[in-house]
């Protein structure tokens, strides 16, 4: 696929923007699915993320990997979305101990990423967020602590618990 023309995107060229969208939509939707509670939420995050990318494209200074910058925008969008949702949600996950009603449907015929996404979506939001940030995005604990406005110790302990839950869910899904 051809490289998207950033200057044209900046000018608001619709064709260039569509090209840009086609280039990143798959990767970014995969990212959104990992953070969101459901596919519908992930679609909302994806939509909002692209709008933000086009809006803030002029803030990309050319330093560093462009895809990394786009990912960062999408991660921030997902975190903001979850924060907003948490505010609107009636229930609060105070300790992240809530489990979903049904076990995830794990299929060996599907790509492992799809199964992993399903398991991730079953994790409580707090655990899932820290797991995503640390394991898949590579953020350090101090960075996570700053992003989520929590202490480094909390970040570490939450990650341990998240991994334990993830492993448990993975094992239970593999055995069923």
């Amino acid at each position, binding site marked *: 696929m051809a490289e998207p023309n950033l200057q044209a995107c900046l000018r608001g060229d619709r064709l260039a923007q569509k090209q840009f969208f086609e280039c990143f939509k798959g990767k970014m939707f995969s990212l959104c699915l990992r953070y969101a509670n459901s596919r519908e939420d992930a679609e909302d995050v994806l939509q909002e993320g692209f*709008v933000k990318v086009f809006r803030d494209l002029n803030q990309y200074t050319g330093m560093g990997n462009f895809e990394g910058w786009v990912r960062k925008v999408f991660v921030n969008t997902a975190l903001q979305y979850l924060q907003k949702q948490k505010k609107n949600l009636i229930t609060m996950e105070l300790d992240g101990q809530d*489990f979903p009603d049904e076990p995830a449907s794990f299929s060996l015929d599907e*790509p492992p*990423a799809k199964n992993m996404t399903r398991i991730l979506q079953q994790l409580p939001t707090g655990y899932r967020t820290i797991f995503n940030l640390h394991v898949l995005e590579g953020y350090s604990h101090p960075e996570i602590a700053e992003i989520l406005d929590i202490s480094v110790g909390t970040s570490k302990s939450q990650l341990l618990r998240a991994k334990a839950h993830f492993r448990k869910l993975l094992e239970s899904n593999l055995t069923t």
Partner: protein
Amino acid sequence: MEENIHDDKLDDYVRRSFEGHEENPPADMWSRVEGDLLPSVEVSTVRALSLRYGWQALAAVVILVLFSTLVCEHLYYEKKLRDMAEKSQADQEILERSHSKDEATGQAIHANPNFHSATELPVESKTITFPPNARQSANLERTATVIPSPKTAKEHAPVQHLVDFERNQGSSTIPKSEPYILQKPQKSSDKTDKSYASVGAVSNEKPSLPPSVETTVAGQNTPNLLPLTVIPIARILLEQSPSNSPTFAKVSIKPVRKPSGWYLGLQTSLLAIIEKPRAPISRPGRPAFSSKKENAGISTIWWLKSGKKLDSRFSLESGIGYQITSRTATHSPKFRFGDGAHLGGPFANRRTFNYDLSTYGGTAEVSLRMEQTLGSPAPDDEPLSLEITTTEYNKLLRIPLLAGYQLGAGRLQGQVKAGLMGNYVLKNELDISARVSQNARFQAVGGRDGYTVQLNQKKFFLGYWLSVGAEFKLNQHLSLVAESAMLGDFLRKDQHNRRLPERFMLGFNLGANYYF
């Protein structure tokens, strides 16, 4: 160490699983994104900004418009005043020149016993002197000064009368096209207070019967001299002359500023909220409860107002108000344990109870998680009664449009105002601060910790304003306002079109107005 190795393997496994993975979004995703970008990126930014800072922008625009109007008004009247002052200054200079010439010529004329007619005077002096040896007694010795008047002769019939008289007398000092005001100086022989405030003013010597010009000149009974009102927007100050010679009044004219009628006010309202409860309407599978107010529900509104006096009685007023309301209430939802939705998994002892809470600020969709405490499993028909404390935080922008009616006159005036108010909801949140189960077998998940719920209410709604009070004018510009007020909201609905409790506020407004 073993755990870490285990963790690393898990991390690697997950990372590898997601490597290069792409998931296709729905086919219409681009059109959704494009819809948000339309018509261009810049416009979407503007839209996003307007959504984010909408009310601030609205407030800023209103304030800017009010401020600009007032500044323009102020500048306009300043200019008008300057022009008037300049004109006045010019008139004053002419008068002073005339005065000094009159002093010189008046002396000479007065000393000349053969002088009979004003026609012999220089035209520039515009002075008519009547010698003491005329047909009348010495007491009637008078000097008349003719001053150009800003008003037309038609507006001032007495002036016209005098002009006609002078013309009849054949005086060439008064051009036929120019109206004049005739002014009398004091009597030359008396140095005490013998000034004439204006043409037709009463002298100290004969306060009850001022001599008229025609009496002075012809010794006949003729109409009185000009009243003070002949010279509008002017203050005439008379000065005593130190000499014995006939003196002339020094006239100082200062323009009186006509009030523009515009004013700017800052007010605060302290209001008690009174609401009429409404039976909550349940939705299928979702019972509804209403809250009982606990605190007095006092609210404060800060107003920036601007208005215009249309005439001595009626006025129009508008502005912007910022209201903050905090209100604590309780409600007591009642369920059976079986009404709650199962959470499943290891938390079979937990249930979620969903219901709607109808409150002052709107409808909250509440979902409570309750769990069973130690003991044998609770049957589904076990009653679950809760006592929940909530605190509402409302922030509103209120924009009134009021018609006012002034009662009475003087510094203290009564006023009645009534009108409509547009209201815009800025913040409408409900904090659930305590959840206590009346049944010891159950407890709230997460203990007594609270959380915040958004209240559903349509963002814009209409209200009304009615106030009765008084305004005390401290001076020409500043006044204090105190009034009792009743503010209310018309029909409000939540997002499911259910009517919200009716409410109105009673209290008082205090503030100050500045008139331009």
